[in-house]
């Protein structure tokens, strides 16, 4: 794993604009940054990232079975009591998952460690699956990269196959996201194109425009009944919204399914560490109150966490409300972003490696139950936030 300086495509900004990638620059900073790229060997990709991420997803599924069967864990993961049956039933009915993204820390040596699993509303799908792919093809065509260069990026094809496997041809699927956010929207549209390529009807409505019929079914912006809804909107919010009471009775298949509420939840991390202690791709993690409570767990935790740990809320987006504590002292903290009062977990601190002044996080994309691609984001700071940059990668 190396970071290599490369000439940028001269016209990439015009190309981005033409394709509708309107957030290639954000907050006055580049978001898409192709002035350098990460290079991997095939061996690094397959045994360092792909196989571990596929295994981590299987472990997360095992954890779901444990969590939905345990009132204690459902409570610790802050699943509202009124909706615990909805979450458990969606798992028992084997409602299908579409996608997710593990955030892994790795420098190419030793084993990749899981920081967290964005299993419910991962974004950056467009730049990972499409724009990054276009970069590779054009850099090969320009002779900047060798003809046999490749990329770990079967994301789009895997999504097409996933939709094809799950739904009969011509099934009408609805897609939704909150209005006014081009980043979220790009992820939803990428998903919807994959569905159309698989032969589905894909219809988009803003989340806020979704209605409830007199018969208790969800309606799109044109008053049509929604049978299946892909929502780029997290379960922890869905379960607390005004329509939450209708989720169980609307006869609508939700994607991602309700059981992702216990996967895309930092509470998954201590549950995984309980179930798979010492697993080479996990970092030790505990519920904060478990440690504060004293007892044997506290000592076990103190030993496992070592001299530094990270404190994270159960739910947070884009690195909000995260604190790094070293030798008992807080050494780094991100803005709370409204998450400060949430229940917390602690995870052993594993510093991100540094490549040319930036720290990469490896986004390992899961489609269905397998890892199918990679998207790298890097940040100057030790906490990856919304000013991070997306970096393309290639396989030598």
């Amino acid at each position: 794993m190396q970071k290599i300086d490369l000439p940028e495509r001269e016209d990439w900004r015009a190309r981005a604009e033409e394709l509708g990638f309107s957030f290639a620059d954000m907050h006055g900073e580049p978001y898409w940054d192709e002035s350098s790229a990460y290079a991997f060997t095939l061996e690094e990709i397959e045994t360092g990232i792909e196989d571990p991420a596929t295994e981590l997803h299987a472990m997360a599924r095992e954890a779901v079975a444990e969590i939905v069967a345990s009132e204690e864990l459902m409570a610790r993961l802050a699943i509202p009591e009124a909706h615990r049956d909805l979450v458990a039933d969606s798992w028992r009915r084997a409602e299908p998952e579409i996608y997710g993204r593990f955030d892994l820390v790795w420098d190419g040596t030793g084993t990749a460690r899981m920081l967290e699993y964005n299993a419910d509303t991962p974004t950056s799908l467009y730049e990972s699956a499409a724009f990054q792919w276009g970069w590779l093809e054009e850099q090969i065509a320009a002779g900047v990269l060798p003809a046999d260069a490749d990329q770990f990026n079967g994301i789009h094809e895997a999504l097409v196959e996933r939709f094809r496997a799950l739904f009969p041809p011509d099934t009408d699927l609805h897609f939704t996201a909150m209005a006014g956010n081009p980043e979220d929207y790009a992820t939803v549209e990428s998903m919807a194109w994959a569905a159309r390529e698989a032969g589905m009807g894909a219809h988009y409505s803003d989340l806020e425009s979704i209605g409830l019929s007199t018969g208790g079914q969800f309606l799109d912006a044109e008053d049509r009944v929604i049978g299946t809804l892909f929502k780029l909107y997290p379960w922890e919010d869905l379960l607390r919204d005004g329509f939450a009471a209708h989720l169980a009775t609307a006869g609508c298949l939700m994607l991602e399914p309700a059981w992702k509420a216990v996967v895309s939840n930092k509470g998954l991390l201590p549950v995984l560490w309980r179930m798979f202690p010492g697993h080479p791709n996990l970092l030790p993690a505990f519920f904060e109150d478990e440690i504060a409570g004293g007892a044997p767990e506290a000592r076990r935790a103190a030993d496992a966490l070592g001299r530094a740990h990270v404190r994270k809320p159960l739910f947070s987006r884009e690195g909000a409300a995260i604190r790094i504590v070293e030798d008992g002292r807080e050494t780094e903290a991100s803005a709370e972003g409204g998450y400060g009062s949430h229940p917390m977990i602690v995870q052993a601190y594993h510093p991100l490696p540094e490549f040319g002044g930036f720290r990469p996080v490896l986004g390992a994309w899961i489609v269905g139950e397998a890892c199918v691609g990679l998207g790298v984001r890097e940040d100057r700071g030790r906490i990856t936030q919304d000013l991070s940059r997306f970096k393309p990668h290639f396989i030598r």
Partner: protein
Amino acid sequence: MTTPATAARPDPAPARRRKRSRRVTLTILGAAAFALAGCREETVDAAAFPDLAACKSAAAQGGEFSALDCEVAFREAQTLHAEAAPRYDSQQVCEEQHGEGSCGTEAQATGSGGGSIFMPLIAGYLIGNMLGGARAGAAPAQPLYRTQDGRFTNAAGTATYASNSGRGQLSASQFTRPAATAGKPPMTRATPASRGGFGTSAASRPTSGG
């Protein structure tokens, strides 16, 4: 349907297992354009008749339906009427929906069932010209009922028509087979009771993703 910019390239490295897609959709159209790019809703040439005689009379004058079409459609609509007409537990509730004198008992309407269930009388029928056969879940002949305000509706209550006589283009979704239960199949129209019940928990946050 609009075709987005896609790109495909031959495999340059057949020697080893390829790790990337062969073809990817590169374009983001934006919410408004994407909705428009959706395959446009199918339409169906349709005609409404108050009764079988009116249909046959139109057929005799060279309408798009034959007298046989009329017979078949009328029978189908009668069957759907028995299966899927709205049912009420009193004459009064039924008449509140369909107008005075527009209701009867289930026993009168279908020749079976009880005298304590009430259904609207059939007030016309709608025939769709489904070339190439009806899609699964579609019914090309639909019974019509009066509404309390003098218009007409279908068995599922998903559409309202000003008249029970006339012709025009209707959305194919209006020929969806009405469900016997309360739940309606996807893509049928329904009446919204409220909107805005999603999204409130995140009102203060710029993005839902991560």
